[in-house]
């Protein structure tokens, strides 16, 4: 049985949303930063053997915004799941994490959201340990688009949440 679900990556600019998708879909990475304007849409099939279901993730890579309330509402129509991505090395990208998550939850109360701290390759485990309270919310995954660490798990985990 094939299911198609729309997931949206949201967060500040430069946090690595496009890099995470590129790593997940194409298994590639580039150090060059190219700003995303508007939306790129890609898709990838995820096999979930334990549920006997395949799921097609239609992944919306939104342009980064330091104020998510400015996100164009049309981009969010029909969203089945969110990935909120922040940059572990830049506090400006997680200072409003808690407010941003509340904002999304209020508008999409039953839609799963996973929180991703990206660029894990640039910080130590100790840094993460010391800053857990600073992030303000539970972080589901610490990823590195550069090394590929946890990237597959993020999308698979969200896919599982979408078919529950």
């Amino acid at each position, binding site marked *: 049985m094939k299911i198609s679900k729309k997931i949206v990556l949201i967060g500040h600019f430069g946090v690595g949303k496009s890099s995470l998708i590129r790593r997940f879909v194409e298994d590639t990475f580039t150090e060059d930063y190219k700003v995303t304007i508007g939306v790129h849409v890609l898709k990838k099939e995820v096999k979930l053997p334990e549920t006997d279901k395949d799921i097609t993730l239609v992944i919306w890579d939104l342009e980064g915004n330091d104020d998510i309330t400015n996100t164009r509402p049309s981009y969010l129509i029909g969203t089945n799941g969110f990935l909120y991505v922040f940059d572990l090395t830049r*506090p400006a990208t997680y200072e409003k994490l808690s407010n941003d998550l509340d904002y999304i939850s209020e508008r999409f109360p039953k839609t799963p959201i996973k929180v991703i701290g990206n660029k894990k390759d640039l910080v130590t485990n100790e840094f993460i340990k010391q800053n857990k309270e600073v992030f303000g919310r539970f972080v589901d995954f610490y990823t590195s688009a550069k090394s590929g660490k946890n990237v597959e798990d993020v999308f698979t985990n969200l896919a599982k949440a979408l078919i529950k």
Partner: protein
Amino acid sequence: MLDNYKKEHPQSVNQYMIVQLDGTITESDDVIYKNIVGENISEIHPFFESIHEALQEKNKRHVFSCIHLTDQNNQTIITDIVVKTFDNDKLPMIVILDLTLHYDNYQTTAQVRNESVINSQILELKNDYLQEKEAFKNAFIANFSHELRDPLTGILTFSDILKKTGLNDEQLNYLKVIDSSSSYLKQLIEDILDISKIEAGKLELVITPFDIRELLEDIKKGFKIKAEQKGLELITNFNNNLPLIVGGDPLRLRQVINNLLENAIKFTEVGTITFNVSLNQIRAQKASIHFQIIDTGIGIAEDDIEQIFTSFTQLNKASTYKGAGLGLAIAKHLVSLTDSKISVDSTLGEGSTFSTNINFKLDHNYKLKSKKKTKEIKPKSDKKYSILLVEDSEITQLSILKILASKGNYFLDIVTKGEDVVPRIEQSEFDLILMDIKLPNSYGDEITKLIRKMPDRDHKKTPVIALTARVFKDDLRRYKKAGINDVIKKPFDEDALLSKIEEYLK
């Protein structure tokens, strides 16, 4: 020609499509995507897979701006997409507007803006990190040198005491080595602390009237002996028209000259050290005095001159000359506090000339403080004085005990914890309190505040002298505010301790 114009001045192009509710394309004008009738809209691009929900709505118009699609030639186009549904049985319409040119310009602007914001955030973080690192270094240096002071006080005082125990010549020679090593260590700690103060921006000059000629003569006396010990000649020329009393920081001026002369002697093996001081300029309330130190030493290569004023830099890497390389860095900073600079003229193998013009204040109302004749302020020999020592370091306790015991007219009571001070004062009367500042779990200035608040009036008057290495301007202000009368700087020797005690027991 029209075709050329169209290529040179392209305008946006639109494609109209009519789709069924399941996404099957029933009509298309094939402007961007050709021959697609009968296909499902989802097959054109993943974007359309997500708009099935919008197709089911009635009489709605959704505009999706700046959507990246791939055309049939595999080229990326950036579009606005309009999805229009109707009330009646009319099928939904999809319009694709190719606005690639417009959005390409936007992309360039956004790229510049975002990169600039990210770079400034990273720069700010780096700056924060460097400041934290700097603060840690300064705190480390301050604490570490503080910890060195107690054992150094022990070495200095017991070395003094040992000298008076009838040693033979060989033993006295050994003691001289201990003396010279501990003096060097003391100087090194002072220099490291000064550098940490400089880097923390806490080093300030204390301006006071002083007799500059007397200070120069005093410096000359000390360095004449040092130069002679190395087989060098110290030539001094102090101009006669120097003002008698100037306003400046005599301690720091002495430090600058000492560092320059030390440096000259250190790097000169044969010849002379010439120390010239002359009046450069005089105005109503300001005198500029020129200091020049010329040596016939090893000299400095032109490319290295800038480096010599950097902390921990010694050009002679072969370690022929001992030293941490802090003296000139400190001198340079101290001179800069008077808005002046030290200039260097040097020839490798021939020698160097260090010069500077330092500004001093002039004021006819300047009067010199009468010098403290400590020797004359001896306490009455027939009276025994009770002194309370608040100190946790056993070395310092023992040093003070030995010094005071050798004089025979002091009773010393020792308390090691802050919380025991007030109860001890309530039990016994003391003529003076020696108070360490950094005690386990408490601070001497805070304890002094408690002493000053005690109901018995006498306690308010008992002199409290702090024993501490922390003598930044802010610290001194805090001690004074707490009711501390004076400070003995660690590490101290017998003279420093006794003269201060005797001053307050007159």
